[in-house]
């Protein structure tokens, strides 16, 4: 049953990065668009994300609930040591969600739209950066777990672990990845004349992702960062990273040829490979502390808890996944399953 729980944990993480990521990315793409393109993007986002964006964000709740039930020691380190970035992340989620609803459900369309749009775009950028920083902090080897915090300064325990060059790089990496996912998604959803906007955005985002990834590694290599040095030593992680580099080629061919399903498949695969590489480098030690690391496979809840959780996840999954698939099929995917406009002309 532990493996069922682990599967759902990683599955929710993957889906959150993929779907939630594309969702954040939509706001980032909108932020970095010209005024005219912003309007087009806003409309497209609403059409594409409207029915599903709530569902996209529930994955993180599932993730966090699985963490606290099955891996309480893990969850404990996150909530105690990363209190500040998690709180900022939460405020971002709150403001972003509210802005999204306000801008689409306000009965009166007037100047307040500017405020909602601004709130939406900025929180779309800031929120994933902080989420990335949280993840970066977990693998940074800077977290200090001590019984008595009073022997250290506030900065040492509660700020430095998440606010350093490495975590900031990971934060920006994640935000760029979100923008990339969203741009690829929007290429397939935009009207034919607007498609080039998103092709260009996808190109820029790809470059930024690769660049930040590269800088992170160079930085980690020269400063002997524990995560990076272990990553380089791990053959699976390296293979995954090489594959993700190689698969950029078919991805771009697919984008150029407007093969929407194929390009999305490769974008999803990219995320899978990146996550796989990041997790496998240290598995099962997903949290790297300053003095040692915490294994995911140790410190787990008692068997009785894992068993019940596994069963509820299987039942929940059996109810939710078909419903979700149907929802995606009914609204978002319909367009993609239909012949492309070029083909139909």
């Amino acid at each position, binding site marked *: 049953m532990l493996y069922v729980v682990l599967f759902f944990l990683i599955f929710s993480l993957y889906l959150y990065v993929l779907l939630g990521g594309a969702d954040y990315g939509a706001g980032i793409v909108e932020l970095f668009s010209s005024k005219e393109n912003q309007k087009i993007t806003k409309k497209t986002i609403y059409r594409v994300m409207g029915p599903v964006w709530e569902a996209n964000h529930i994955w993180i709740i599932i993730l*966090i609930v699985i963490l606290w039930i099955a891996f309480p020691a893990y969850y*404990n380190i996150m909530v105690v040591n990363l209190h500040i970035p998690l709180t900022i992340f939460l*405020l971002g989620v709150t403001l972003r*969600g*509210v802005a999204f609803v306000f801008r689409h459900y306000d009965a009166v369309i007037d100047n307040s739209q500017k405020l909602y749009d601004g709130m939406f775009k900025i929180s779309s950028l800031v929120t994933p950066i902080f989420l990335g920083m949280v993840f970066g902090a977990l693998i940074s080897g800077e977290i200090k777990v001590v019984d008595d915090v009073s022997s250290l300064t506030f900065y040492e325990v509660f700020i430095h672990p998440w606010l350093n060059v490495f975590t900031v790089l990971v934060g920006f990496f994640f935000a760029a990845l979100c923008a990339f996912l969203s741009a690829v998604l929007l290429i397939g959803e935009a009207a034919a004349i607007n498609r080039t906007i998103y092709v260009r955005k996808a190109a820029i985002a790809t470059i930024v992702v690769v660049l930040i990834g590269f800088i992170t590694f160079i930085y980690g290599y020269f400063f002997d960062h524990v995560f990076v040095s272990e990553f380089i030593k791990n053959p699976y992680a390296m293979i995954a990273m090489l594959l993700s580099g190689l698969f950029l080629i078919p991805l771009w061919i697919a984008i150029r040829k407007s093969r929407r399903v194929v390009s999305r498949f490769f974008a999803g695969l990219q995320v899978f490979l990146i996550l796989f590489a990041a997790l496998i480098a240290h598995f099962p030690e997903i949290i790297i502390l300053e003095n040692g690391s915490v294994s995911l496979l140790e410190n787990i809840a008692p068997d009785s808890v894992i068993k019940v959780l596994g069963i509820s996840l299987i039942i929940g999954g059996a*109810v939710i996944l078909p419903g979700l698939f149907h929802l995606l099929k009914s609204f978002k995917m319909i367009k993609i399953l239909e012949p492309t406009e070029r083909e139909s002309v």
Partner: protein
Amino acid sequence: MENLDAARLQMAFTLIFHIIFACIGMVMPFFMVVSHYKWLKTKDEVYLTLTKSWQKGVAIFFVTGAVSGTALSFELGLLWPEFMKHAGPIIGMPFSLEGAAFFVEAIALGFYLYGWNKLPERFHWFTGVIIGISGVASGILVVAANGWMNAPSGFDYVNGEFLNIDPIQAMLNPAWFTQALHMTLAAFTATGFAVAGIHAYQVYKGRKINLHTKAFKIAITFGAVAAILQPISGDISAKDIAERQPVKLAAMEAHYHTEKGAPLYIGGIVDAETQEVSYKIAIPNALSFLAFGDFDAEVKGLNDFPEDERPNVPIVHYAFQTMVGIGSILMLAGVLYFISLKKKKWLVNTKYWIFFVLLAPLGFIALEAGWIVTEVGRQPWIIHKIMRTKDAVTPMPGIVFSFYTYVAVYLTLSVAVTWLMIRQIKVLNSSNT
């Protein structure tokens, strides 16, 4: 301010808001599907306009409820890490099921909001019903988790360790049913009277009388039925608490001295120093009867409990009085509404509408007061008789800043949501149907 106080205030503050959003998001879908049903049956355009307008309300409150709920799922750990470390695995069951129910609700909401003219009519309507049912299920599950804090079960506590954990027994703890029943009825009462009050105000102002009267009737019917049933549930709760948490009952009643044939205090000002209650109305033997069904039963007073195991008596007592007082008013108002169905004349009397306008906020005040009774009344424990709240709080100093941030954000949000609702109603009034 001490960390513990700041953390408690932040938790209370965010919960107070979340409860409002969550209740409306949970109950309004029912109003919406009733109106939708009437539209399908009668093809009266007014019902369609109403359904679509309520649907926007549902969407807005669902999202605000969802994001404040997401924040809470993190806050439990951010503020009370020591509690979650031990309690998380034990009460994980209702939370994971709640996650599932919430997911179903989000999917159904997606179908409903975007399904107009795209989905088959009946299926579309049915997705609305699912929103309501899964919303109520979510609410019940979360309350079950709270019930566990009041009535911890499903484990053995040996030398400070939680052993032999049984998550199902923890979920079906002795408090879950009474609390969930009381809360569900309260949600329907509060939302019913609040929504009805808003529409009553529109009728009073003479705007779209036909539409707003129809809206009023749908909302108040739910509210009135729930308000009339609530005292029964309250009685079950009182008897349950008398058994399980006698100190909480004593605090609710400001009952300091153990006695047989204890009187029931209505109102009164509590002096915690002298342990006296002045200006009260005392009904002889009534407390014994309400708690144990026996006029001469012995009711334990606060003095029978160690001082460091008592909650703040005045807060619990005043909150309890507020809840019961309002509950009684709303129950009578519910009865009055059903009488008014026979008296057509009342509907043209402005006093009738003003009466319901004035009642609009009361349900929510009672609901919040009720939660203050449960939560403050549980103190000093975070897990009754097992873990103290002060031992569960985060070691990170400076929570007070986090508290102020939350206050600023939530107050801004509530102003914004209110403003949005006012705009919604204005547009509704200027539409053609």
